[in-house]
């Protein structure tokens, strides 16, 4: 806390100083000119112009104009602009007018790779970069949303519509069963631990997307292997925006939106419901019917407002210290009433060059303040099931004036709550207050020193930190039916995380012209420590009494892990045609025993730039043709417990004590362990081509890959009696992913008035488990996953395949309750008749983006499609007659489907509920108008309007077919968002 306060305060002081600093300097001569887009002739604002050999420079204004003081000895200007090819222009007399060539998907583009950068045309691995201009637009409040649908082989699946709930990111399918499948995320060289922050659903939601300049995804092991043990699920490199040159340039962006529920669950209407109860229920049920007509889903959802405002200023202090400061305020309501998120972020980037440019320093500091009120998610399923004939309020109710299922003693008038009935959804929301606050600060400083006596050798020190804390309180009054048994609650939660990174590496980059070669070699060392402290609190009732037995034994728990790494990479380029790259990383993890904790992760890759061969180099049509071949091994140790290899005793809770005589003793419990626990390894073979035609107006790539994970970190049942648990996390099993990725980007039309760009990507991935047990056993059906028994990991099938009974149907095509196919033909329908039926993972994933510009108007859209993904509609399993006429003494609503199936009891293991959830979605459609110069050319204005989650085409009958993991249990629905925004530059 203290550290953070100090940081907060010093950051503020610093920003203030910065904003008021005005720097003037003397000049000898002014040179001026205009920069335009070569294709369209439109002026380009914000182009960086640097006097060659110095750090003096300036940016163009809104009309593309610039004025720059120069001295007599200056000879040339360097023009550079994100997304365009840079140009050197000699200084001449008179105006200098420059037309910059757009680098649309250009191979000149510089791409960040681990511990360095590379030109896109020289890449040896499967790497894709998306720049800010190609990000998803509209109301995007979390970084991963920016690239949804944009990269072949990368799927971004929303966790639902709750503000800040984030997404699941998967690169080339899943590579692990029980360790993490999340990619490693690195922001400006700072790898994030992904540690949970209490009160924050997704730690990534504390990062301001407005600060992001580009997102690069390392997909194959060859490019990711430099990140070693944490790279087997791919790596996402986030590069934030940096400062400019010269005078401060301000940019203000505001985005305001309203979100609305797209589709309610279809339930029986009050009249249908009454008819059903009157026709099917006896008098005791009919007596339970109410007189109201309540649409419970309308009662809990709202049209939600979001405002996101971002102000940034960038420029340069003196001539050698580019800076950028950005502040953002987000206030987002959820469509579920009472749900709200407020986030303030502030970011600073400083990039001074010192000691005659020998020392480059990159400093990034970021702070986030987060306030959240969580709505009670239980209201969502309750709103589906609650009796529509009951009123929301009941003045005589002792449960806060809300109607609840209860019985009244006719004599005493005493009201007794029906403890097993669903709760009033509105009361669930209004009588539940879960408020959280979180703070996070992260940053890094990189010193890049080129040795004066050997300028090709750079020594780089990178230090980073990420500290966060979260805390919150849950208040429920004693009279609320939802916490009736515990008479309310006044509970709190709190944790702190501190992650530290230090890396030191040497980089040597040398052109050896005599032998037409270039050598780029890197070697380094890294230290990574993740520390989190979780506080324990007793359970407190609304009246402040402590629930007996809940007093924690320890005030907190500490979880810590450390990783040490040595790494090296060499890239050899011959004649600008052949590139051979090899890397090796050796990682030691505190999660494993000393004898097995070090793992080695090598990679090798080769690129042949075919278009550089003599027979192609002069081709006008073909501008790029690279063949890439790579192989690499990466490891995984994330998502598993920190101390699983150690035999230790833990003291049990105060509610789990043992009586001897008249004294209760806390138990000392030995924990299960596997002393041999070690790395899970994924080897990836990748073959790809990058192609470009007509000066790269058409470009893209095609990749084939085969990923094989061995020594899977797998929680398996072990022989009872051999350890202190029935299951243990150990290294058993193999799994592979095979796939193809294809992308094409085309500037179909490009002229001064009209532009049309199209991008399409598609990928195919198939996942297979090839071994899952220590001893080969073909009769082993597999390991059931999750806590249900609907999915299974079995040899020969995709991970998490559905494992269900085959439903039998009657002549009219309706399912017959409890009648399943006797698949093994033994005359008995039992567990042996369950079968593997499809998987929740899509086989094909497509993304399509297009953009039309007509003069100042731009229309853009993004579509996505998944094919071959299946979803288990868990919500529909509740559509049974015994739920409407519940023997537990209440009525409950269900889907009208029950009128067709007439199921009396739930049939959760039927394949009837597993549905093809392939879909086509329009994520976004937007229109923007570039107003141009306003306020007497003092500012530049762009306005835009967007609609997100426009439509979904699917056969799936639930609310949303896109559910990671494939189990649909009344999730918080994703909303349709209508937003209006504007950007002013001044």
């Amino acid at each position, binding site marked *: 806390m203290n550290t953070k306060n100090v940081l907060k305060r010093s950051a503020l002081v610093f920003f203030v100083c910065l904003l008021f600093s005005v720097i003037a300097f003397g000049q000898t001569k002014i040179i001026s000119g205009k920069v335009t887009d070569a294709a369209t002739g439109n002026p380009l604002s914000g182009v960086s112009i640097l006097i060659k050999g110095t750090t003096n420079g300036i940016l163009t204004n809104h009309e593309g104009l610039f004025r720059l003081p120069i001295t007599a000895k200056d000879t040339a200007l360097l023009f550079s602009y994100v997304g365009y090819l840079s140009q050197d222009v000699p200084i001449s007399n008179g105006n200098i007018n420059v037309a910059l060539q757009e680098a649309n998907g250009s191979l000149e583009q510089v791409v960040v790779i681990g511990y360095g950068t590379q030109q896109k045309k020289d890449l040896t691995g499967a790497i894709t970069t998306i720049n800010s201009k190609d990000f998803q637009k509209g109301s995007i409040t979390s970084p991963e949303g920016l690239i949804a649908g944009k990269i072949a082989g990368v799927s971004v699946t929303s966790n639902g519509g709750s503000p800040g709930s984030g997404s699941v990111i998967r690169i080339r399918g899943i590579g692990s069963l029980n360790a993490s499948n999340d990619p490693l995320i690195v922001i400006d060289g700072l790898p994030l631990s992904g540690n949970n922050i209490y009160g924050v659903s997704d730690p990534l939601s504390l990062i301001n997307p407005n600060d992001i300049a580009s997102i690069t995804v390392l997909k194959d092991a060859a490019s990711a292997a430099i990140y070693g043990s944490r790279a087997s699920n791919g790596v996402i490199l986030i590069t934030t925006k940096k400062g400019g040159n010269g005078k401060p340039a301000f940019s203000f962006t505001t985005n305001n939106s309203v979100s609305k529920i797209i589709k309610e669950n279809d339930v029986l209407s009050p009249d249908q419901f009454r008819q059903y109860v009157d026709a099917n229920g006896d008098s005791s049920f009919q007596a339970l019917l109410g007189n109201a007509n309540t649409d419970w889903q309308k009662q809990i959802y709202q049209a939600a407002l979001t405002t996101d405002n971002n102000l940034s200023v960038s420029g340069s202090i003196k001539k050698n210290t580019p800076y950028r400061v950005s502040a953002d305020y987000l206030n987002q309501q959820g469509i579920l009433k009472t749900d709200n998120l407020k986030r303030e972020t502030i970011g600073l980037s400083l990039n001074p060059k*010192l*000691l005659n440019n020998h020392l480059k320093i990159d400093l990034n500091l970021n702070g986030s303040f987060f306030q959240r009120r969580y709505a009670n998610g239980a209201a969502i399923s309750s709103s589906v099931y609650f009796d529509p004939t009951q009123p929301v309020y009941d003045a005589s109710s002792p449960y806060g004036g809300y109607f609840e299922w209860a019985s009244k003693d006719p004599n005493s008038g005493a009201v007794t709550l029906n403890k097993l009935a669903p709760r009033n959804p509105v009361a669930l929301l209004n009588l539940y207050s879960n408020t959280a606050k979180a703070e996070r600060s992260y940053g890094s400083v990189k010193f890049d*020193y080129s040795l004066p006596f050997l300028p090709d050798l750079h*020594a780089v*020190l990178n230090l980073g930190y990420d500290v966060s804390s979260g805390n919150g309180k849950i208040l429920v009054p004693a009279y609320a039916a939802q916490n009736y048994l515990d008479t309310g609650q006044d509970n709190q939660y709190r944790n702190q995380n501190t992650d530290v990174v*230090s890396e*030191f590496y040497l980089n040597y980059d040398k052109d050896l012209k005599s032998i037409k070669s270039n050598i780029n070699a890197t070697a380094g*060392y890294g*230290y990574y420590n993740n520390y989190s402290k979780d506080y324990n609190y007793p359970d407190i009732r609304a009246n402040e009494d402590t629930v007996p*037995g809940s007093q924690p*034994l*320890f005030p907190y*728990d*500490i979880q810590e*892990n*450390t990783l*040490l790494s040595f790494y090296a990479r060499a890239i050899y380029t011959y004649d600008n045609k052949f590139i051979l790259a090899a890397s090796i990383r050796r990682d*030691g993890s*505190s999660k494993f025993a000393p004898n097995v904790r070090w793992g080695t992760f090598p990679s090798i890759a080769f690129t042949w730039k075919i278009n550089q061969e003599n027979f192609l180099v002069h081709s006008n049509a073909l501008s790029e043709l690279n063949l890439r071949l790579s192989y690499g091994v990466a490891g995984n140790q994330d998502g598993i417990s920190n*101390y699983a290899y*150690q*035999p*230790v*005793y*833990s*003291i*049990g*809770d105060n509610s*789990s*004590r*043992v*009586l*001897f*005589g008249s004294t*209760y*003793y*806390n*138990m*000392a*419990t*030995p924990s299960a362990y*596997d002393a*041999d626990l070690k790395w899970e390894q994924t080897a990836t073979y990748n073959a790809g081509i990058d192609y470009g035609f007509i000066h790269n107006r058409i470009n893209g790539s095609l990749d084939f890959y085969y990923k094989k994970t061995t020594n899977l970190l797998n929680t398996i*049942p072990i*022989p*009872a*009696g*051999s*350890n202190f648990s*029935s299951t243990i996390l150990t290294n058993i099993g193999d799994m592979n992913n095979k796939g193809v990725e294809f992308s094409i980007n085309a500037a179909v039309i490009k002229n001064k008035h009209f532009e049309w760009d199209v991008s399409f990507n598609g990928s195919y991935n198939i996942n297979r488990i090839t071994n899952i047990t220590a*001893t080969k056993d073909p*009769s082993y*059906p597999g*390991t059931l996953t999750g*806590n249900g028994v609907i999915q299974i990991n079995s040899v020969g099938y995709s991970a998490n395949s559905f494992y269900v009974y085959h439903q039998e149907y009657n002549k009219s095509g309706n399912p017959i309750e409890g009648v399943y196919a006797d698949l093994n033909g033994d005359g008995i329908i*039992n*567990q*042996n008749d369950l079968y593997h039926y499809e998987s929740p993972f899509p086989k094909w994933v497509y993304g399509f983006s297009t953009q039309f510009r007509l003069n100042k108007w731009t229309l853009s859209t993004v579509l996505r499609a998944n094919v071959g993904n299946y979803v288990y509609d868990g919500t529909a399993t509740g559509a049974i007659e015994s739920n409407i006429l519940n*023997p537990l003494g209440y009525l409950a609503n269900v889907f009208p489907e029950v009128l067709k199936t007439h199921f009396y*009891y739930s049939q959760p293991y039927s394949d009837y509920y597993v549905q093809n959830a392939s879909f086509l979605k329009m994520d976004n459609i937007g229109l923007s108008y570039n107003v141009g110069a306003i306020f007497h050319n003092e500012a530049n204005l762009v306005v835009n309007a967007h609609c997100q989650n426009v439509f979904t085409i699917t056969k799936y009958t639930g609310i949303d077919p896109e559910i990671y993991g494939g189990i649909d249990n009344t999730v918080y629905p994703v909303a349709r968002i209508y937003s209006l925004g504007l950007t002013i530059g001044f």
Partner: protein
Amino acid sequence: MKNSQLKILTPLIWAIVCFCSCSKQLNLQPVNSDVANVQYSSLAGYKQALAKVYGSYSLISSSGTGNSDVSFAGISDVGVTDFFRAFWNVEDLTTDEAICAWNDADLQSLHNMDWTSTNLYVHAIYARSLYQITVCNEFIRQSTDGELSSRGITGDDADQVRHFRAEARFLRAYQYWVLMDLFGNPPFVTDKDPIGKYIPQQISRDSLFNYVESELIAIQPDLIAPKQNEYARADQAADWALLARLYLNAEVYTGNQRYTDAITYANKVINAGYSLMPDYKNLFTSDNNLNNPEVILPIAYDATESQSYGGSTFLICSAHGTDPTDDAAFGIPGGGWLGNRSVQNLPLLFGTNYSSSPDGRALFGPGTLAVNDVLDFTQGVEVYKFSNVTSTGQTQYSPNGVLCSTDLPIFRLAEMYLTYAEAVLRGGSGGDINTAVSYINTLRERAYGNTSGDITAGQLTLPFILDERGRELYWEGFRRTDLIRFGDFTNASYLWPWKGGVQAGAGVDSHYNLFPIPAAEITANPNLKQNPGY
């Protein structure tokens, strides 16, 4: 190099130096737990570990009701992994004593007698038993004389730990008896085997019988004398009671009759100073830990200190519906679970007027004799035997009105009386029929409050013993073992509603006399051979 450059380089050099000395930083330890040498450095540490030895059958985990020591695919409610609940499910729900209304295929298959090797509840008791055995093995390994002296534990402290160790061996023998009874040929691990990914060997039922017998005999001198140990800890009488139970069933386990030995050990318990609880129903009230002269070894539960949704909480809550008056009367204002009740056979042991039987053991509530719909809790007779109210009618405190504080006996004097009588009838020597009749009548006089229920020697037959065991010990985890000993468990000779999945009742194949080794275990342990028929 210029000075300013040196200044800049200093942090670089400092950082490099600091990096290169940190391989040890990879040795991280959890903060709230200890390695063995720390845990076992004192008598108090040993006692905490002994608490886990017992807690392995009285609780589901050391961290509250939401976690379990054992886990396997398919569990959605960890409460089912509690020892007594899991044992009761396979011992009583499979018989004429109980039927459950919960719509859970695996649970229903217990009463229907069509369970398979993937049955969740079969797995639960198997895993729980072996878990306690594993914890006992660890304690036994850590408490050898060599370990004690190396840790400097001597004198009186060392003597106490020796008693602890004998108790751990007793509990291990008890769980091996459970496994031998239910599964016949379980895997066999002792303190001689390592912890890790060891693959245990299977042991045959008769070899296991010999092992359990030899252990129980060997540890007698190290156990504390009857009634001298702390409450809820095993003593010599518990050891003898288990031996008596073992010998009574020896013919089932090994084919050899050991009724004489059963009489010998039942006698040892009977003569050890125990007496019957004067009022039968007070054996099962929430103050049964106090002044209880009959119970030899209980499992202790407490709504605050030893919370579990198994044990007595399960027995009491699952036996009641949602009627608030009824729930309050049994000390569970937080509500009943609408689960277990009895089919007609159990109440009819007390006659058709079971609700007004003079036999005080007929503790039944409402419900129809006939069960047409298994899933309707009101069909079947509610069992009011266990209660969370004290013998004086006080509702025991419960933090949520659900958790109970009633202890459950696993050995009590009445069983020894019945064992003695049955062993005499089955031809064991060392006892006599008149003593047997007097023991039975002692039980019946407590039940009736007078001698009106007494029987004569002529009435004391084996079928009477089976019925009397039903009346005395129902819902205490005896019935399946008893029915097997009498040949009535799977045969069509004795039926009850929904036996074999048929409303009228039907016999099933005799392989159901043993439970299957869980399928997951067969896969995980290639040394195991499945029981015949599964």
